[in-house]
Each structure stands twice: as C-alpha cells, then as structure tokens.
C-alpha cells in the first residue's frame, strides 16, 4: 500500500523507537558485562565502558557456573528428546483417528496446558519426595516432560493434520505395517513440526524456575536459572559478573531460536490462528 511521505516518516520514527525499546536493555546488559570491575559506575550511567574487557566472563565462568550449565544442558536436552518423542506418538493418534473418546482426551490435553504450575507443585513435590527423587535430574526431567507435553501434542497434531494421508495409505496398501508407516513416512514428513516443537520445549525448560527452585536444594543439582538467582546475593553489586553470566545463560537459546526461528513461528502461529 502506498503511504504519504509524512505518514511514512512517522512510521519510520515509530520503528526506531521500537528498536530502542527492545534493544536498549540488551545493549546495556552487554555493555556492563564488558565493564572492568575497577571502573566505577558513572551517574548518570555511561552507555559504553571506557576500557571494555572480557575479564567478567572469565571470572563468571567459574566451576559452579559450569556445573549449572551442564545440569541445564542435561535436563533440557533430555526433556526435548522425551517430550517430542512422546508427543509425536500421541499427536499421531489424535490426528489420524476421529473417535469420540479421542476428542474428549484431546480436550483434556488442551485443558492441562492451562494448569497453574504453582497450584499443582505441592502434590508433585510430595510424589518426588516419596519416590526419593528430590535433587535428581529425573525429578526435573519428569516434571518438564509432563508440563510441556500438552502444548507439544497440540503443536504436532496441528502439523500432522496438514500432512496428506495419501502417502500413508499408499504405503499401507503396499503392505507396510503401521509401525513402518509411522517411522518411515510420518516421522520424516513431520520434521518441520518436530523442530518447532523441540524449540518450544527448549525455550520453556531452559528458563524453568519454579520446579527447579523447589526440587533442587544442593549446588550440584541446580540449573542455570536457579544458580543465576543465587548469584544475586553472592555477587552483591558486582553487576559486571552478573551481566556476563546472564549473557552466557541467554546466548544458547537465542542462537538456537534465531537459527530455527521460521519453523517455530510457523508452528506457533498456524496452531493459534487456524485453531
């Protein structure tokens, strides 16, 4: 659509304002992470340190941080693999059959994605305590798989509904059993949906805080979000190290997200807009 030059100018100014609103905190986080611990804070703040250095990153990459990082990697990685596998199996059943009971079960799946985690955490905590799973990876992985399953099933079901059934039927006529049809036809075709769902699970579990805070009490088992929260007290106002840690926590998800963004956006909006 053609815009009048004055309107165009106003809109471009709006875009610049938007970019500032979104990016300024990121820029500030990065800038402070490069500020030497010896350089005092200017009041009002200075946007870029006088002599930027990577020292804060070296200090912040301490043994504890590495432990937290590994814990997050293990817990999130396992959750992504398990959730996506279980969700794909379930979504396939939901997408390929129209039984009344399946419709009812799907409604229960959609309902479950709205459950408040804070309201169900106490019974889950007690289950974990009884099973002697507190302070283990298993407690977090089980919890994360459970809470990400509903949305994952919903996303993958939306994806499978759009795939043509004819290929599966042709393979079945050629004598392929249902398991072969699933693994050799459905799984490869569903790849974009699998990636989108994997990104979703990664974003959610990489930053999950409530379960991690409640189920882990030892330093050895803490994940990055909880560890980072502990740093607030430990670092006092050593903001340089705190910001360097924050950058290191955020970079992996931001990188993955931008690499796989188009899959994720397509998966999310298709489900949300098309219903």
């Amino acid at each position, binding site marked *: *659509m053609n815009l009048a030059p004055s309107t*165009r100018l106003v*809109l471009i100014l*709006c875009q610049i304002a*938007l*970019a500032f609103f979104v*990016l*300024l*905190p*990121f820029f*500030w*986080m990065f800038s402070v992470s490069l500020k030497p611990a010896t350089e005092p*804070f200017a*009041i*009002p*703040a200075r946007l870029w340190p006088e002599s930027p250095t990577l020292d804060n990153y070296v200090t912040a990459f301490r043994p504890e941080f590495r432990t937290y990082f590994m814990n997050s990697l293990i817990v999130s990685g396992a959750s992504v693999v398990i959730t996506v596998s*279980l969700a794909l*199996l*379930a979504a*396939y*059943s939901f997408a390929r*059959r129209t*039984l009344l009971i*399946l419709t009812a*079960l799907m409604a229960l799946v959609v*309902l479950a994605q*709205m459950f*408040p985690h*804070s*309201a*169900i*955490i*106490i019974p889950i*905590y007690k289950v974990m305590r009884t099973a002697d799973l507190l302070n283990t990876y298993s407690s977090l992985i*089980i919890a994360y798989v*459970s*809470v990400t*399953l*509903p949305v994952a099933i919903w996303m993958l079901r939306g994806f499978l509904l759009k795939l043509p059934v004819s290929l*599966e039927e042709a393979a079945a006529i050629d004598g392929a059993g*249902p398991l072969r*049809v699933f693994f050799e036809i459905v799984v490869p075709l569903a790849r974009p949906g699998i990636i989108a769902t994997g990104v979703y699970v990664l974003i959610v579990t*990489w*930053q999950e*805080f*409530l379960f991690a805070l*409640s189920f882990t009490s030892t330093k050895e088992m803490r994940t*990055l*979000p909880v560890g*980072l929260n502990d740093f607030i007290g430990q670092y006092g106002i050593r*903001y340089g190290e*705190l*910001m360097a840690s924050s950058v290191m*926590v*955020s970079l992996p*998800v*931001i990188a993955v997200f931008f690499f796989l963004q188009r899959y994720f956006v397509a998966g999310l*909006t298709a489900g*949300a807009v098309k*219903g």
Partner: protein
Amino acid sequence: MTTKDRWIIWFFLTPALILMGVMLYYPMIGTVIESFYDTSFISPEPRFVGWTVYEKVWNSRQFPEVVWNSIYWTIGVVLLQNVLGFFVAMLLNQGLPAQGLLRALVLLPFVLPGVVTAILWRFMYDPQLGLVNSLMIWLGLFEDNAAWLANADTAMAAVIFVAVWKGFPFSMLIYLAALQNVDKSQLEAATIDGAGPWRRLIDVTLPSIKDVVVVNIVLTLILTFNYFDIVWVMTRGGPQNATHIFPTRIFETGFGQFRFGEAAVYGVFSILILAVLVALYVIVQTGASRRRPTA
C-alpha cells in the same frame, strides 16, 4: 491405518496419557485434598481439619491483598501487552524498509530467559546505577533517585512494565499472522471509498481479526495469571506484599514456610479463578470456530 491396527492408537497414546494423568491431573486433585489438611513446620504430620485452613486464609490480611494484586497485575499486563502487540504488528506489516529485520529483533525479549530478564531489569531499575533513572535525567523528565522496586506505590507498575516488555512479542506474532490473512481487496475497496487509515482499521481490519483478538486476550489472561519467575526474582512479592500474586504467595507459603495446607488453599482459589478464565476461553474458542467457514 486399518481398523485392525487400532491397538496402535492406544499403544502410542499410553505413555503421554499416563504421564499427564499422574503429573498434571492427579496433582490438581491432590491440591484440593491437601487444602483440608493442616501441616506446619512444627507438626509436619498432616492432620485433617476440614474447612479450618480455608477460614484462616479467608480471614487473613494477606488474602485480599493477593486477590487485588493478582487482578491489578493480570489486567495490567494483558491490556498493555495486547495493545502494544497489536500496534507493533500493524507497524511491522506496512512494507517499510527495516520490517524483516525488526520482525526478528522484536522477538528477542520473548526468548530471553525469565530469570535473566528479571535480573537485567532489577539492574535497570537500580536507583543510582540503573539506566531507567539515567534516561529520566537525560530526557530532562526528573532528577531523582527513584527506587522503583523498593517503593510499594511503584513496584507493581514497574514489574508489569517488564512483563509487557517480555510478553508483547508473543502477542505481536499472533496478531501479525492474523493481519496477513486480512483480505487485501477489502482494504483497497475501503481506500477507494475514501476511508483513512483509522476507518480502515475500525471498519475492515478489526472485524476480520476479531476472533484472534479475543482468543489472544483470554490466552494471555491465563498465562499472566500463572506467572511466577519475573515477579519472584524482581521483588519476592514485596515491598510490603505489594507485588504478591497467587503463584508467589503459594510458593512462599509452601516452600518458604512449609505451610502446605495454606499454600494448597491459595492453590485451590487460583484453580477456581482459572476455571472461570478457561470456561471463558472455551466459550470464545467454540464461538470463533463456529464462525469460521473452513474450520
């Protein structure tokens, strides 16, 4: 799949269904049961006490605070996030030069982990060192070391602002997808009829994306009501309980004070409120899909 292969449906479904049953549906019931038992740090053995804990919570000074704060918080975030998300979606749908780049950059806050967001903004709000007060000085608005998060009058607004900053990209994504489905010929026809941008927005765009708007609002209502990490890391519910909402109160009562019964009562109340919101969502969704011709 043929009918004789029906076993495979259940074979594929069982693991997911068992997990969700044990870890999501059972705890929902578990919380209700828990709310009728009293446990405390001194007597950790649960005792059945009927409605006693409900009375205790209902008559406490904290309960009305939590209800009021949750309303303030939820409505504030949902309203601002959707308005901002909608207008940014409009802005990034005009074919301006930097549109593609901005559509990607705007998603950054959405991906930033919640705890990182909270820590970053705690620092932004720092009275002396923070960027917020420095910006105020540069812009000549006022020169004062306002302690946004330590002041009970401003803390909630400050936290709402952060939640909106992190949340609006999500709303924007969904609005953008809806805007791209708006019938171009209708917009052009309205332009030929002499409708300006506002008239086009009100007469053509809004009616055709109405369903998405309503679903988006109810969805963000549910998500916002359940929010925990940003509020907890930024304020721990303080100062003077000014930012305590249901999730932070439940966590503090349960895992801070080990009063599981009381925490469960707060949990039951939040489930009831959510049930109303979910019912709203279901009504809106079925209404929306009934209106869609090709659903």
